[in-house]
């Protein structure tokens, strides 16, 4: 117990003294009735017991003047209940303090509330409270101290008279206030040590009548830990007081007051400080909530926009990719990425695709993977991420699909800050038997690296909400797709039936027309006139081309139904076979120069790939037949976007790039039938086959100067 007052514990019913501190006036000792020593107190205690306070902690009863050894002495009396006893604590006050009751503080408190209301920022609020508390208590220096997530404290505001050094902006390591102390601060809002050099006073007897040491958790005179006293001495302070700032139920920070010399603060003034701090905490709470609400509102409008965009598109990914600004705004991020097993799409300032892939792999490997992951210091979780701290020190990630390991990431760059510590935060190793507080409070500068601005609660919530929306959209899409695929299957069946009957029934009449017309021509030709024979020829030609058309159509429709049977194979061998096949139909007098480069291996269905090459070769031969020498080139370009690129080039009639889009369409022709025969299905087949393999096709050409047709096939690991 501290010696700036004395303590009595009383049996609540009989008001007989059970315990007394050693510094209590001579008559006050265990076993003596309160009425015998301090008759003036009996009524005060009775009233307290009859009207118990609903509040926790020591309760100020009143100021009394007692005759101690025939000398009148004024005390402030506080009471609380502990272990079934009434604990009375009496603090001496001087005549001057007597004047300064709670009433004296009332105008000050009123003005304080007024000023708090007008404050706009947390810092401003803190400054007001520091000033007022120093004014009420008369300490040399008052600090407002805020805990961060790691329980390091930062001095946000300070008011002082210059006697003690300024600690403004300094950080204090979490180890300065151990976890047990923090818990005590949460329960008992105000502590005071008027004289750091005090000699502790014992309580007699040590144990309560129940046989336990008295619980002094709520006591105002309670002794503090010797470590703390040593800490104060090392800091150069002779007296201290601290008031806890509780926002909600959590310890937000402290108002920490110091004096170089011993300094007393009357209970009344302390109560005023406590009151003031509580009002301040309320205001703080409102401020923080207001700021969050404002941010939530702003983010929710971004979110509903994104939701609309996603709903408009077939894939939610497109909805996001088309509105990169909103995606970034949702989490106030500098960069974002949408990562699935196959693809990685980047928005804004991000690490490289490879690095994002690394993050993706790391995150999907986490077994306790949460829906939302956020960190402001990624390299502390994943040391490799230090390499791209400038792009992604902050990571906010939502998992969109666990099954397909799809994520949306937001990135924040590193913000290098210089933090001034009030002493080296790396605490010297404590001796095993006893804790030693640090001795040096010299400013210790540290550059904090690998950290981004922390993600706020509304930002993390916005990300979580987006996840819910995305999952909703994905689920709905899946349902729609399921319905659509059923529909597709049905119409596919119908199409199959249709193509079957075309195959059997529509081909026959054309064959018959051609057949009979030919018989007519060969067997009865001599009875026909020149004109008649011309008519028959035309009938044959027309029916033949109609029949060919049917054949081509059937082949085209079969292409879509044919299942892909991919194998890796030598492309040059395949091309050589097709080249020979193509040359079979070429009249001997035509000159064709083939230029076939090294083609390597390809991963495709050989049957289908043959059709692609066959079509491209027959096209190249057809459109270059008027050249004195046809030059047909087949080559392979360096891979692009994970795909092998092939091309077929000819020196034929070429085409106008204006019509390039029509080139690959079904039945699209760019030439007159009289000039170049064909049904216009060859390139449509090429495109269809290539696309079924996951590749794509395009063409380049110029009228009269030849054409080049490109196609790509996705590369597999072994082909690269």
């Amino acid at each position, binding site marked *: 117990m501290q010696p700036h007052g004395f303590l009595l514990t009383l049996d609540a019913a009989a008001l007989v003294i059970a315990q007394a501190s050693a510094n209590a006036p001579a008559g006050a000792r265990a076993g003596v009735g309160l009425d015998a020593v301090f008759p003036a107190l009996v009524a005060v205690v009775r009233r307290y017991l009859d009207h118990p306070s609903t509040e926790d902690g020591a309760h100020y009863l009143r100021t009394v003047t007692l005759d101690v050894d025939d000398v009148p002495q004024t005390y402030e009396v506080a009471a609380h209940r502990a272990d079934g006893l009434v604990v009375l604590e009496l603090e001496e006050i001087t005549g001057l303090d007597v004047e300064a009751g709670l009433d004296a503080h009332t105008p000050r408190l009123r003005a304080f509330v007024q000023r708090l209301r007008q404050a706009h920022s947390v810092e401003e609020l803190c400054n007001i409270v520091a000033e007022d508390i120093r004014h009420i208590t008369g300490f040399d220096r008052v600090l407002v101290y805020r805990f961060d997530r790691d329980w390091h404290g930062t001095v946000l505001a300070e008011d002082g008279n210059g006697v003690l050094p300024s600690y403004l902006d300094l950080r204090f390591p979490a180890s300065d206030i151990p976890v047990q102390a923090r818990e005590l601060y949460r329960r008992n809002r105000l502590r005071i040590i008027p004289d750091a050099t005090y000699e502790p006073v014992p309580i007699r007897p040590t144990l309560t009548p129940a046989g336990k040491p008295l619980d002094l958790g709520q006591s105002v005179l309670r002794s503090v830990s010797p470590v703390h006293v040593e800490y104060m001495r090392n800091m150069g302070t002779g007296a201290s007081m601290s008031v806890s700032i509780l926002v909600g139920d959590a310890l937000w920070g402290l108002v920490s007051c110091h004096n170089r010399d011993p300094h007393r603060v009357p209970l009344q003034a302390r109560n005023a400080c406590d009151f003031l701090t509580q009002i301040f905490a309320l205001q703080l709470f409102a401020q923080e909530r207001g700021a969050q609400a404002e941010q939530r509102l702003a983010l929710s409008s971004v979110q509903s926009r994104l939701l609309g965009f996603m709903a408009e598109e077939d894939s939610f990914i497109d909805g996001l990719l088309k509105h990169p600004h909103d995606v970034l705004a949702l989490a106030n991020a500098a960069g974002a990425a949408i990562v699935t097993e196959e693809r990685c799409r980047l928005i804004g300032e991000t690490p490289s695709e490879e690095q994002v892939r690394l993050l993706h792999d790391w995150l999907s490997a986490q077994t306790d993977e949460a829906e939302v992951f956020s960190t402001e210091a990624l390299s502390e979780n994943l040391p490799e991420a230090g390499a791209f701290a400038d792009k992604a020190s902050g990571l906010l990630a939502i998992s969109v699909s666990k099954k397909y390991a799809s994520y949306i990431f937001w990135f924040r760059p590193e913000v290098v800050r210089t933090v001034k510590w009030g002493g080296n935060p790396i605490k010297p190793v404590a001796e095993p038997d006893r804790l030693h507080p640090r001795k040096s409070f010299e400013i210790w500068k540290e550059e904090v690296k690998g950290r981004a601005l922390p993600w706020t609660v509304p930002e993390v919530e916005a990300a979580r909400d987006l996840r819910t929306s995305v999952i909703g959209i994905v689920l709905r899409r899946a349902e729609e797709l399921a319905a659509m695929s059923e529909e597709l299957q049905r119409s596919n069946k119908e199409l199959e039936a249709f193509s079957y009957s075309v195959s059997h029934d529509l081909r026959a009449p054309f064959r018959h027309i051609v*057949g009979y017309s030919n018989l007519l021509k060969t067997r009865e030709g001599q009875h026909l006139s020149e004109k008649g024979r011309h008519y028959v020829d035309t009938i044959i030609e027309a029916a033949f081309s109609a029949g060919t058309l049917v054949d081509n159509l059937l082949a085209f429709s079969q292409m879509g139904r044919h299942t892909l049977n991919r194998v890796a194979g030598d492309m040059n061998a395949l091309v050589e076979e097709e080249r020979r096949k193509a040359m079979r139909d070429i009249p001997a007098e035509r000159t064709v120069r083939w230029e076939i480069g090294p083609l390597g291996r390809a991963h495709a269905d050989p049957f289908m790939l043959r059709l692609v090459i066959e079509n491209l070769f027959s096209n190249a031969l057809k459109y270059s037949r008027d050249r004195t020498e046809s030059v047909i080139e087949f080559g392979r370009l360096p891979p692009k976007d994970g795909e092998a690129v092939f091309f077929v080039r000819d020196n034929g009639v070429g085409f106008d790039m204006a019509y390039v889009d029509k080139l690959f369409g079904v039945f699209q022709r760019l030439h007159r039938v009289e000039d170049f025969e064909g049904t216009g299905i060859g390139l449509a087949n090429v495109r269809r086959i290539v696309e079924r393999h996951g590749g794509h096709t395009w063409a380049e050409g110029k009228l009269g100067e030849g054409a080049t047709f490109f196609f790509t096939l996705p590369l597999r690991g072994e082909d690269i």
Partner: protein
Amino acid sequence: MANLKPILLVEDNPNDIELTLAALEAGQLANDIVICRDGAEALDFVYRRGPHEKREAQDPAVVLLDLKLPKVDGLEVLAALKKDPQTRAIPIVMLTSSREETDVVRSYDLGVNAFVVKPVGFDEFFAAIKELGVFWAVLNEPPPHRGGWPSNV
């Protein structure tokens, strides 16, 4: 040449019959050409049942079989003949309009000897029929006949 095995043409469409006959004619084959208009009749012919009960006991040199036939269709005829050890050796050529892959696959699964999609072009069609006739009726050496016909006649 006496005792030349007949060619069995199973086809329901009269136009196709006429055109095929014209083509076979052009091939100048000496074989008789027997025409059945549906699958049931084709089986009757092979097994010498019903109207064909009285015919000479002799396998056809080749069966040119259309796929789509009334009553018993081409695939069923194919299946029946290829399943029976007595008739398995008879060469069967599917001669059809169909370009459906499934038909081709099914036919080969059932043991067809050849599958020919009738070309639309007249010259190609004539050439195909001529070659088919010459190959199967003249050039192809069938396996030696094992024993007599079953006593189902």
